[in-house]
């Protein structure tokens, strides 16, 4: 079986180069047989990589500890579901999965025929195969998933206990699909440049790909945050860890990209800008993969493999230089069809949105790579942590949310002062009322007030927009409220889908603000019989218990929770369990957090240092 895996990756490397040759040959010679042959090669490449994945999965499930990868990331005690997930637990498997997803997308493009992008397809596939060749090269020469150990082991080293969580199934996979998905719009952009086509076809064709990649990247990040929240046990969900930042960067530039793409589609402007944004986004997805896989920055995710880092640097450098040179060379064809007509217009508000997103990406990028830069420049490693990011990103983020509220209200081309006054009075009043109510209810923190007021503004603009469109529709069609609403939303999905995402962003902003500003934290050592009070909760500690769970020892406590209501009554909320799990193969115990969650707030309890002889320390936070 191991040999089959080795042969299939080796054959994949040969086929990928053949495919590149075939597409380049077709572009030169215009011989249709070459193009057909190249397309078949793409499908064959997909088959070969699928075989490699199936073989690796088989080895992981069978527990063949003569294979280094299997021994490094699994052991006999590991449940089947996590043995499967070990496919993406290490470098070799991750790279294999990465290129498999890429080739799957290329195959989908190769087997479907469309009219509008037929002339671009050879270029698109050639670019995608060029990217795939780099990963195939790594799989064969640098990170071979099928490498054998000199001596087979009796048992493997096992999977890091922190990874044994359902998040292991959702977070890495969605993150990968998101990363890889941006390769498609990038390839189309390169194809348009090579063909000297300045129109928006590449944007129209790739819009769905971009949104698809963006959606998966978003899911990946949100699920990653959720995983950190329940598994790492430090009470947070986002630590500005280099790897988290690495996934945020392409998300920011990708978000900027599909906003500015609208301007090119509608108004024929920002052409160079769009090309640069898609290049940047693609390069950042590779950079993200590089950050994780090279171990250049220490983080919770840090890997260590020097040679891999070198190859990634070469690849990023080459891809960046080639795509930028191409854009520079084709600059004359990318002339704008129109100019900005007025400073106050939808176009310019999109431009501001783009600038703010890019400014945010720049700050995150700089903060992330600063340790490397400072070490190279001064010899001392200066790191910036969460305080830096919070201080810089929070104001920019609020500005971004504000732009998000303003943008839909401004007319295309040229907005009049009357137009603005007409549209802004009500949302602005709504946000002012909201802030005033907040103050009246005793909310003193100005950061929270600003954030909630801005959020209320955005929601108000969206609600008013929908209400206005609904009135217009009813007047012109005479439909009932329900029918009109459904038809309105489904007939203009692009606009209202966007609003839906905007509302989701506002919900996140409100949640992040709440958890940052209204967090209460209590650390207390308790003996059995003592209680811990936090906010309006009371937790009783009755003692620690121990149980054996397979080869693990679990120390846990069941804490009855009582909530003191405003009217003085005491409501019993049941029992909250929190655990420390001691694994035989690792010195460090893992934490199972006790979370009592509601829409309003979370009660989050972790055992800090349970000890059976002395008092136990508890740490809890209630988050509004």
């Amino acid at each position, binding site marked *: 079986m191991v040999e089959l895996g080795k042969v299939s990756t080796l054959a994949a490397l040969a086929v990928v180069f053949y495919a590149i040759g075939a597409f380049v040959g077709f572009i030169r010679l215009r011989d249709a047989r070459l193009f057909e042959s190249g397309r078949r090669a793409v499908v064959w490449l997909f088959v070969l990589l699928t075989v490699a994945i199936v073989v690796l999965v088989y080895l992981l499930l069978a527990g063949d500890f003569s294979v280094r990868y299997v021994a490094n990331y699994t052991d006999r005690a590991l449940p089947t579901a996590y043995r499967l997930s070990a496919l993406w637990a290490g470098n070799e498997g991750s790279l294999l999965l990465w290129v498999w997803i890429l080739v799957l997308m290329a195959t989908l493009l190769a087997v479907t025929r469309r009219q509008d992008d037929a002339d671009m397809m050879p270029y698109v596939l050639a670019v995608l195969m060029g990217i795939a060749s780099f990963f195939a090269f790594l799989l064969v020469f640098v990170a071979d998933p099928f490498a054998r150990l000199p001596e087979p082991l009796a048992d493997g080293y096992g999977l*890091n206990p922190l990874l044994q969580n359902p998040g292991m199934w959702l977070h890495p996979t969605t993150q990968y699909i998101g990363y890889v998905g941006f390769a498609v719009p990038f390839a189309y952009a390169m194809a348009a440049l090579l063909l000297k086509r300045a129109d928006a076809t590449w944007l129209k064709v790739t819009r769905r790909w971009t949104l698809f990649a963006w959606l998966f990247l978003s899911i990946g990040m949100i699920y990653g945050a959720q995983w950190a929240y329940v598994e790492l046990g430090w009470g947070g969900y986002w630590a500005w860890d280099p790897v988290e930042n690495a996934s945020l960067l392409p998300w920011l530039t990708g978000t900027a990209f599909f906003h500015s793409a609208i301007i090119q589609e509608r108004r024929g402007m920002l052409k160079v800008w769009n090309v640069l944004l898609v290049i940047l986004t693609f390069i950042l997805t590779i950079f993200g993969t590089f950050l994780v896989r090279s171990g250049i920055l220490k*983080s919770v995710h*840090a890997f260590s493999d020097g040679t891999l880092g070198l190859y990634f640097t070469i690849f990023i450098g080459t891809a960046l230089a080639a795509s930028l040179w191409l854009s520079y060379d084709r600059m004359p064809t990318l002339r704008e069809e129109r100019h900005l007509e007025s400073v106050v217009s939808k176009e310019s508000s999109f431009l501001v949105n783009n600038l703010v997103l890019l400014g945010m990406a*720049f700050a995150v990028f700089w903060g992330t790579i600063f340790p490397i830069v400072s070490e190279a420049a001064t010899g001392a490693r200066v790191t910036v942590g969460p305080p830096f990011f919070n201080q810089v990103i929070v*104001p*920019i983020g609020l500005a971004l949310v504000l732009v998000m509220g303003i943008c839909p209200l401004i007319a295309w081309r040229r907005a009049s002062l009357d137009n603005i006054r007409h549209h802004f009075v009500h949302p602005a009043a709504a946000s002012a009322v909201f802030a005033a109510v907040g103050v009246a209810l005793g909310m003193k923190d100005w950061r929270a007030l600003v954030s909630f007021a801005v959020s209320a503004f955005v929601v108000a603009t969206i609600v008013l927009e929908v209400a206005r469109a609904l009135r217009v529709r009813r007047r012109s069609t005479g439909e009932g409220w329900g029918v009109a609403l459904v038809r309105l939303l489904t007939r203009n999905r692009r606009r209202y889908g966007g609003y839906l995402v905007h509302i989701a962003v506002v919900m996140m902003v409100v949640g992040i603000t709440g958890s940052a500003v209204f967090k209460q934290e209590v650390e207390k050592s308790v003996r059995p019989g003592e209680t811990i009070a936090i906010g309006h909760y009371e937790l009783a500690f009755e003692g620690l218990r121990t149980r054996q769970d397979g080869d693990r020892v679990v120390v846990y406590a069941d804490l009855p929770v009582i909530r003191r209501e405003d009217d003085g009554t005491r409501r019993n909320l049941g029992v909250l369990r929190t655990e420390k799990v001691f694994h035989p193969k690792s*010195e460090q115990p893992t934490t199972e957090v006790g979370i009592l969650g509601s829409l309003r707030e979370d009660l989050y309890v972790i055992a800090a240092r349970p000890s059976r002889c002395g008092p136990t320390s508890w740490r809890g936070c209630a988050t509004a």
Partner: protein
Amino acid sequence: MRNPRLLAALVVGSAVLYLMAMGFTRTAPYYLTVSEIQVRAGSLQDKPLRVAGVLVGDSIQWDVQNFFLRFAITDGQETLTAEYRGVRPDNFEGGKQVIVEGRLRPDGVFVANQVMVQCPSRYEAEKDGGGL
């Protein structure tokens, strides 16, 4: 008509740069060794610092009632006494590589606001945290 764009870029760009500059000067800690701290102690008062060193086993005093931890770290030449108010981290034992973040008090004691124990060797598995 290029001016409005340029203006917008300048305004947003300089705002971002200003925020970053403020963020750096206020929050960026210096990464130093224990010896460097002892040599430059005078010039480091009130600056955010980050120090790595090996935990001295018999220096650890842990007051479990008040959540107060006192310990010393060394780089083989010099030692640095540190205090930390909070939960004693897991695996906080002599010989472990630790990183402390905080400020230097005038009396030369390091007041940590964060203490991190570097993961033990098996925790090279830590390298895999979440694939991506």
